[in-house]
């Protein structure tokens, strides 16, 4: 049953190459993502009951445990919402004659290849295959980033492909060293299987493992958007079409971070304590938050600002996992979920903005709440959410991160962290809040009212989700995150 997760996007790609009717393409996409949603629900149920979900096909190649299921659920849920939003978005683009029907076919086929590669990355046990899948996500999304084919989009796509490919090649060096570290411990037919490596982690060769962690952190950190390897992120996320930006920001960054987490678990188990990895992750995390804070102040393009905010949140996640206490791991996992939903909502809302106003400049937009009531409200509340205001979910996870910082007596780090977050809130407020006031410029030409009906529904749904998770933690979710946390710690006595 779980293999449907692999097969469905494949079928969606094939069908979207064959079908020529726009309505048919939209229907295929929404149905495919709905099927994925149902399967994910089924898989989550199985994981909660039985701890892992694995099939004996190809030597247990398909493998989901609690950590994977969290990331997988985020991927599929946001994928579904983006598919629904894309229907309205693409129809509007077609109406304005910006893209042809062939391009819609291309969009859907590439989007499902992208989804397939991301699902693949989190459902395999072999670290080498996970690497192959993550490289495939870069390649699959390259043309999506360059979708509009103008100068800026091409430049963004080129930077994206080159920097991420080089980064992922660095991660491959790390994986080779991981293989070297495990060569006496695990037989060559089972090489690079995560569960075997995790069980026998104490017997791995420590110096080589340390070396491999450094390379993997730098390599997959490039893909996850950690500074100083983040330079592709603002360009790629701002030039891509908005639903794709939502996928990139909300989902892809998580998958790259997931790869780092798997290796982090092994290395921490081997070394016995988390000081080596912790220092590195905290350093990269703080550097990312700083870089984001500095650049947010001077942005004039709202999508780029949202991209820098993604860098900031990835930094917070890295910080949380660097601390590696039970509370901070819980907070990190929860933050991954919250950031995905909030950021996707923001990018989808910004897509509506872009279609309505036709400009990416912040100064070109005024009187948002009048012209786009639903998207405007979602955007405003989303901005509050992303900078960590209660009662939204990001506040809940960020509070847990500072609590864990202060419990571990890292007072200076905690202080710096809070200062940077305040700085970022100030930056977002100064640059963005003015778009909500005033009269819309070119008033008559713009007109009031939502264009993208399905999109508006999606935004409303996401808004409800982030409010709900901020106020109340369902037991199901708590149980799932706690099992993932147990996997990562796996017996380390912290």
């Amino acid at each position, binding site marked *: 049953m779980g293999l449907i997760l692999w097969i469905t996007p494949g079928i969606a790609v094939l069908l979207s190459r064959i079908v020529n009717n726009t309505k048919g393409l939209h229907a295929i996409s929404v149905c495919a993502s709905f099927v994925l949603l149902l399967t994910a629900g089924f898989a989550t149920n199985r994981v909660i009951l039985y701890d892992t979900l694995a099939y004996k096909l190809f030597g247990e190649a398909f493998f989901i445990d609690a950590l994977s299921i969290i990331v997988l659920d985020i991927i599929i849920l946001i994928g579904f919402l983006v598919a629904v939003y894309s229907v309205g978005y693409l129809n509007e683009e077609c109406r304005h004659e910006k893209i042809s029907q062939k391009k819609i076919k291309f969009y859907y086929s590439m989007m499902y290849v992208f989804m397939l590669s991301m699902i693949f990355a989190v459902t395999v046990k072999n670290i080498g*295959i996970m690497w192959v899948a993550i490289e*495939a996500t870069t390649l699959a999304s390259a043309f999506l980033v360059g979708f509009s084919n103008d*100068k800026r989009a091409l430049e963004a796509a080129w930077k994206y492909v*080159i920097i991420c490919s080089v980064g992922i090649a660095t991660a491959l060096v790390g994986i*080779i060293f991981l*293989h070297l570290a495990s060569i006496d411990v695990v037989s060559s037919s089972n090489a690079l299987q995560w569960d075997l490596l995790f069980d026998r982690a104490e017997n791995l060769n420590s110096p080589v493992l340390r070396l491999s962690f450094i390379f993997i952190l730098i390599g997959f950190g490039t893909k996850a958007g950690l500074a100083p390897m983040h330079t592709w992120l603002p360009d790629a996320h701002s030039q891509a079409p908005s639903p794709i930006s939502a996928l990139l920001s909300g989902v892809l960054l998580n998958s790259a971070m997931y790869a780092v987490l798997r290796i982090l678990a092994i290395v921490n188990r081997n070394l016995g304590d988390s000081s080596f990895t912790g220092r590195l992750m905290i350093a990269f995390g703080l550097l990312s938050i700083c870089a984001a804070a500095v650049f947010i102040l001077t942005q004039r393009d709202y999508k780029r600002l949202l991209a820098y905010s993604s860098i900031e949140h990835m930094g917070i996640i890295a910080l949380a996992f660097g601390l590696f206490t039970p509370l901070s791991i819980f907070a990190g996992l929860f933050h991954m979920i919250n950031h995905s939903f909030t950021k996707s909502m923001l990018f989808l809302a910004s897509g509506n903005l872009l279609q309505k106003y036709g400009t990416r400049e912040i100064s070109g937009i005024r009187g948002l709440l009048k012209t786009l009531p639903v998207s405007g409200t979602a955007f405003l509340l989303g901005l509050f959410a992303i900078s960590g205001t209660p009662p939204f979910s990001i506040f809940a996870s960020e509070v847990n991160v500072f609590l864990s910082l202060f419990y571990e007596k890292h007072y200076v780090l905690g202080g710096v962290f809070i200062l940077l977050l305040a700085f970022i809130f100030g930056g977002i407020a100064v640059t963005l809040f003015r778009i909500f006031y005033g009269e819309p410029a070119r008033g008559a030409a713009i007109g009031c009212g939502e264009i993208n009906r399905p999109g508006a529904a999606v935004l409303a749904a996401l808004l409800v989700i982030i409010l709900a998770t901020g106020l109340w933690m369902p037991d199901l979710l708590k149980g799932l995150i706690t099992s993932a946390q147990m996997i990562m710690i796996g017996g380390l006595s912290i």
Partner: protein
Amino acid sequence: MEHYFDVLSVLILLSSFVLVSNKRIHAYIKTFRLQSALIALTAGVMGFEDVVNDGNYDVLVVCAIIIALKVILIPRLLHRTYGNIEYRVEKDFFFNIPILVIICCGLVVFSYFSVSNIGALSGLHINLQVVNSFSVVLIGFFFMISRKKALGQIIGYLVIENGIFVTAMFSTQGMPFIVDVGIFIDLITAVLIMGIMVIRINDQFESIDVNKLKNLKG
């Protein structure tokens, strides 16, 4: 037998030096082809040894894939890509070639100090081979950043992948087979995509000088 691997690893390292000291696209592709042929030879010898000792055909299949992909297919793709673009010789560099070569020597020394004496490597010969292969990876990185044209960056990426493959082969007798095949599929797709992008960039920007890609800043 160890001596043969030593010599092959030195020749691979030397081919990457030859790559850095070249100025013409045609020469880049030819040198890449030579380097891939040397790597295929190494894989072939190692595979042959494997077949004789263990009866495993994996490494030989990988050798065949390398020949098909890196020696034949990818250079042809690159030739076709650069056939669409009117540029033959790089005329300007950030540094001149002797300085580039000396920086590469520095990279070899650096790789020696970082990678040699990894406890898990048994013996001096494997140490030498891993130092040489890791230097190829570093020289590939350096090649990418020292070229101003987009095609140079693609070739730098290919050299990095070459170096990684050789490091894997010398230190751990190759990655698991399915991972190797996955890596090659990724590589060929990456080259195809990068090639298509270079052609599009050439159409939009009228040149493939990466310094001209400066619209997005800040």
